[in-house]
């Protein structure tokens, strides 16, 4: 689960990770009123107006503005609030800005990158840092891997101050900056652990001319599997940042990801679902979604999944590919039949069933009277659904 920068900074404050003074606003009026408050509280004329959307690269898209006067800041608020912000991560349609953060400007001495995430190879959480702050860190990692400094956290002992001292030295911190860094890192690593983060990024981490180290940005993702023990974090979810179909899928505990193509897919198991997308592309088609109904789905869940797929207007054909283990083929058949009876079926449906109770499942589909194309195996099904989608697409273009 992702949250906004301002929410991340509030959590940082709670844990004692220094962040600039700022006020988050949900309306343009609130944002305008925040400007003098920030100026007064921080004793500065310079404020930064930052669009709050989940996607990164906001600066590049014009979603971040440093203003030297109140009038400049007001203009920035009016321009940014409500704008359709396009960044490399939003896709070409962009994302409407509905929240902004008004923050104090600071006299930055240097910008660094700091990130924390699980290193799968070692099974440990790893802190990554670089003196190349602000830049695209993935580019740095690819072209100059030696510029990414790493410290791994022992799961038993936890983060140690010497690691912060060593990291600070390698980053070139000195004086007050070096002295304050262990406390900063202690707070940050505690937050990562206690909040069950899956990713934490500060880009940039800054040093100021008056000797402070602060998080100028805050990107936090949480481990979805651990949210059951953090009800307060679930409250931070912003539904407007999530795809409507993906939200509906989440309600049913389905794994669904919207894609660009026109062939709807319903599969059980993440690996088989990914491979079904692969084989559709192999035969020249384009999947409209990734959908894993999971291992132990009920007929109701299958019906919900089917409705999500058919509600996508781009879908020109549907491929149901099931290998029943725990999931029984008759359950899938029942779910599909119920869904089609409720919402109708306007596009070709290709079904490949294999596994537990396969004969019963096939019999139910055959006797349902529905217009279903049966597939002998995965390859046969993929070829049939690609052909069907191509025919419909052509027909629609006439």
């Amino acid at each position, binding site marked *: 689960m992702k949250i906004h920068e301002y929410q991340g900074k509030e959590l940082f404050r709670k844990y004692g990770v220094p962040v600039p003074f700022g006020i988050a606003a949900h309306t343009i009026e609130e944002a305008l009123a925040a400007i003098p408050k920030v100026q007064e509280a921080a004793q500065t004329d310079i404020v930064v107006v930052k669009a709050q959307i989940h996607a990164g690269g906001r600066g590049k898209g014009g979603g971040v503005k440093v203003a030297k006067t109140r009038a400049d800041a007001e203009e920035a608020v009016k321009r940014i609030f409500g704008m359709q912000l396009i960044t490399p991560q939003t896709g070409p349609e962009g994302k409407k800005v509905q929240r902004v953060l008004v923050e104090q400007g600071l006299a930055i001495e240097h910008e660094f990158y700091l990130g924390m995430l699980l290193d799968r190879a070692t099974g440990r959480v790893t802190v990554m840092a670089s003196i190349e702050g602000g830049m695209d860190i993935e580019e740095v990692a690819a072209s100059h891997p030696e510029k990414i400094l790493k410290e791994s956290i022992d*799961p038993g002992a936890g983060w140690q101050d010497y690691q912060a001292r060593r990291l600070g030295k390698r980053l070139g911190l000195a004086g007050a900056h070096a002295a304050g860094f262990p406390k900063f890192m202690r707070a940050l690593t505690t937050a990562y652990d206690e909040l069950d983060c899956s990713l934490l990024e500060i880009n940039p981490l800054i040093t100021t001319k008056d000797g402070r180290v602060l998080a100028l940005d805050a990107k936090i993702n949480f481990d979805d599997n651990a949210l059951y023990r953090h009800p307060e974090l679930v409250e931070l979810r912003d539904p407007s940042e999530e795809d409507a179909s993906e939200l509906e899928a989440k309600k049913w505990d389905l794994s669904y990801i919207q894609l660009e193509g026109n062939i709807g897919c319903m599969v059980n198991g993440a690996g088989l679902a990914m491979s079904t997308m692969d084989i559709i592309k192999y035969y020249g088609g384009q999947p409209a979604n990734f959908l894993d109904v999971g291992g132990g789905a009920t007929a109701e869940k299958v019906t919900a999944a089917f409705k999500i797929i058919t509600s996508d207007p781009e879908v020109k054909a549907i491929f149901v590919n099931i290998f029943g*283990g725990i999931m029984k083929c008759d359950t899938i058949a029942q779910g599909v039949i119920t869904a089609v009876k409720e919402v109708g079926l306007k596009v070709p449906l290709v079904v490949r069933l294999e596994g537990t109770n396969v004969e019963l499942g096939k019999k139910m589909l055959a006797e349902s009277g529905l217009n279903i194309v049966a597939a002998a195996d995965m390859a046969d099904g*993929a070829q049939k659904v690609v052909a069907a989608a191509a025919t419909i697409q052509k027909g629609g273009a006439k």
Partner: protein
Amino acid sequence: MSVLVGYDTRLVVQGMSGSAGAFHTKQALEYGTRVVAGVTPGKGGQKVAGLEQVPLYDTVDEAVQHAGANTSVIYVPPPFAADAILEAAAAGIELIITITEGIPVRDMVRVQNVLANEYPHVTTVGPNCPGVITPGQCKVGIMPGYIHKPGGVGVVSRSGTLTYEVVHQLTALGLGQSTAIGIGGDPVKGMDFIEALALFAEDPGTSSIFMIGEIGGDSEERAAQFIKDHVRKPVGAFIGGLTAPPGKRMGHAGAIISGGKGAASDKIAALEAAGIAVAPTPAEMGTTLAKILSARS
């Protein structure tokens, strides 16, 4: 011959009184698995409907002391799974197979650390995996038993349903399996490809190997290097997620591409460079292995 599980397996089911635990215990018994005990804290001494012949204990310790359990399978819900794994290790269980899906990463990081430090001799498989089966002998997990057939192909996979898919294809081609291991797709887990491959390489009952990988991480690349250096048996492979868009988490599994690392194309290139036959589509996993086997004979 086989690896990990077989006729010697004496299984304890942790979470046997739950619906999933009870269902799969019945399936395992029907398959011929020796299920010697169940464990559900607070329900020791009670009977589970349909499983009256299997004694239920409060602790894994009792299952080891009184029933001689040497292998555990875990079906307990995610909030209690980490505790269950460590309980099994502390009780002296040698092989722990965790089926539970959705265990927080923080819990698994700690569990694996304790296991590595305190119980280096314990083998763990999973979590979030279908389990391990030695066809005709012993089924530990949630895979459909009837698609398997005893034989010489060792199967190791990160994906559950793709394991069923390849086993089904192999069986249809007359190629039985020595043991099929589902290692699971979680980012922090027990056995990885290399440990499974090492077992198959040593096992006289395994004459060839099929491995199934997914996007994310670099396990497949390291496995490719290991095969090149240590495995002299024919190996076929498939990698799922060739067309997955970067940065998106594909389902519950640890399958995610980020930072330009872990793409399927990198993994396929590494496997091919190690001389491994990679199936072009998931429909051709069985035939890909059959082809290299017939070319050798």
